[in-house]
């Protein structure tokens, strides 16, 4: 994957200006994609969600997909609040059900470029069954999974991605379950596009998001993200900066990696967080296949 040398990050409108509240910045370059009256957001200092939302909106802007043809669906949790900040048709639904809701939205109107933006607990614990089935069906939408290794909003409980040895508010004596290796789950269930990045890999993340927006079929992007409040402080990553440094120093790009072999091994100090695009293949989507079968059925019935 090529990494961009430069981006037009700053629109001419983005400049220091005097406001009633003092000197500040009038416009964010992505303001046109944000519900300004919902800002400030609820996310903690050091959280990676701002970086990931920024990357998604940048990819959306670069993709030239009109906002009115875009939809974002989120479940519950800190990541679930993303839908409330983007100024497109956006849905903040029940815990775990972002994927089936998005399935209805996309199958109901195939012109909607639909993205599910949610967290690891929402997508892989309470919503895990929907994830594998949407991947199996190859419904045409993208899933961004913000993986912060814990349930942040409810106070840092262990979840399906928490490393076994991490002490959290529900594993005070240490954990005893194996976490999911998310790219392996996605690839195994049939996703046509699987990538993993961290919030340190902003440029690569934007590229992946753009590719996913352009690609037909079920695309999955895991983004590892700092959660200093809920998780980091319990595992020696007290600040967002420290987590970013951890991501920087401990990750290794390997697009050729087999997704089944990219599980994290925090117990091994020499192990790496393997990042990259692991799967990018073409397969007929749910709607293509159904269209074909229903078309044949109409022929057999002799109807238009």
């Amino acid at each position: 994957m090529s990494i961009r040398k430069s981006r037009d990050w700053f629109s001419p409108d983005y400049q220091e200006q005097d406001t009633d509240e003092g000197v500040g910045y009038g416009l964010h370059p992505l303001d046109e994609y944000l519900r300004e009256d919902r800002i400030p957001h609820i996310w903690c200092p050091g959280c990676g969600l701002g970086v990931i939302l920024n990357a998604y909106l940048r990819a959306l802007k670069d993709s030239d997909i009109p906002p009115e043809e875009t939809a974002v669906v989120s479940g519950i949790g800190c990541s679930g609040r993303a839908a409330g900040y983007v100024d497109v048709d956006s849905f903040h639904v029940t815990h775990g059900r972002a994927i089936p809701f998005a399935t209805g939205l996309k199958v109901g109107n195939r012109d909607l470029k639909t993205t599910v933006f949610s967290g690891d607990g929402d997508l892989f614990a309470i919503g895990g069954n929907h994830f594998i089935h949407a991947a199996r069906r190859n419904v045409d939408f993208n899933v961004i999974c913000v993986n912060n290794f814990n349930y942040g909003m409810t106070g840092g409980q262990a979840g399906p991605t928490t490393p076994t040895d991490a002490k959290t508010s529900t594993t005070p004596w240490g954990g005893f379950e194996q976490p999911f290796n998310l790219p392996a789950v996605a690839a195994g269930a049939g996703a046509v596009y699987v990538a993993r990045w961290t919030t340190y890999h902003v440029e690569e993340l934007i590229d992946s998001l753009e590719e996913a927006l352009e690609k037909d079929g079920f695309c999955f992007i895991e983004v590892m993200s700092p959660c200093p409040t809920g998780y980091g402080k319990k595992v020696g990553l007290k600040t967002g900066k420290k987590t970013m440094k951890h991501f920087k120093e401990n990750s290794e790009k390997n697009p050729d990696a087999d997704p089944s072999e990219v599980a994290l091994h925090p117990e091994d100090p020499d192990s790496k967080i393997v990042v990259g695009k692991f799967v990018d293949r073409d397969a007929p989507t749910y709607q293509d296949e159904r269209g074909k079968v229903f078309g044949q059925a109409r022929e057999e019935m002799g109807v238009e």
Partner: protein
Amino acid sequence: MMEPGTYFMEGNTACAEGAIAAGCRFFAGYPITPASEILERITERFPEVHGSYLQMEDELASIATVLGASWAGKKSMTATSGPGFSLMMENYGLGLMTETPCVIVNVMRGGPSTGLPTMVAQGDVNQTRWGTHGDVGVVVYAPSSPQELFDYTIKAFNTAEKYRLPVVVLSDEMVSHMTEKVEVPPEDEIEIVNRKKPKDDPEGHLPFRPDDDLVPPMANAGDGYGVHVTGLTHDEKGHPSIDEKTQNMLVPRLIDKIRKNVDDILEYDEYKIDDAERVIVAYGSVSRAAIEAVDMAREKGYKVGMLRPKTIWPFPEERIYDLAREGVDDFLVAEINFGQIVYEVERCTGGAAQTYLAPRMGGNIHTPDEIVDRIEAIDRGEIPSFKE
């Protein structure tokens, strides 16, 4: 839709055909006895009408997908039975909170739990009213024949679109598996209601600002309105606002849009009620036995009539209140459960008449004889009113 005419049709088939006639073009479901024939009929027929059918991984997904498709602008439906309906409760609440039109068919079978999968019961009546958490206003139809499954599935779609909510068609195994005459009217004789669309520009549009009927117009996803939809308490912009004031703006309206439009929504049937001293209250399959019980009891000299709620919710509360004050001595509620609607009847009488229950535990409906025996026993003073 089907050619107009007279058909000999199973209830579940009539339900699916009613949905198609109403304009349903999206269905997501999960197989379950005794509702599966609805899924099967839909899949058979949807290619012809260019509908979208998804067989989901469970009922949680089925209802969530139906809500998503409704926001995409499709008239959407799912069909299930008790266990699946229990799984749908959270997203039934999401649909009510986000004012998402759709139809949920629940073909009741014996419960609790897996219960009697192939046999009739009416144990989900209160669940349709109180099953999801929080305060809600709901509309639930209880058809008693294949014809009514056809007609009221259409009506359910119309009500869902008009008042913006998930509407439940509460069938039971007996009605759904009964095969009877069904009249399919010509297309132009079927009333179809579509959701109100906003007339103002997207700029400054308030997607949850209601009109005088308390129902906000609905912009679908892709219409250019950039609507935000959340299950959180939200203001007229649709933005979450976690405070008492917004809660008091929103939730009472969701309840009132049904209550204040009750004259438009409420439906019930009456049989020989004018001079009745005793009224049998029955709905769904049991109401068919109750009609015969009325005639049999009248032959024995009892002045009996029947009230059949066709909308279980809203319930005909004023009518019961009035009857209790206009000479009806007692109400006998015949239902296939251990007492659900009987509590509603008792509440509505306000103590002005006695309320009795003819319970049944599921597996079969009451025979007319059983209901008449009950009437005679009450007359002999053998059966206490259910609250004693």
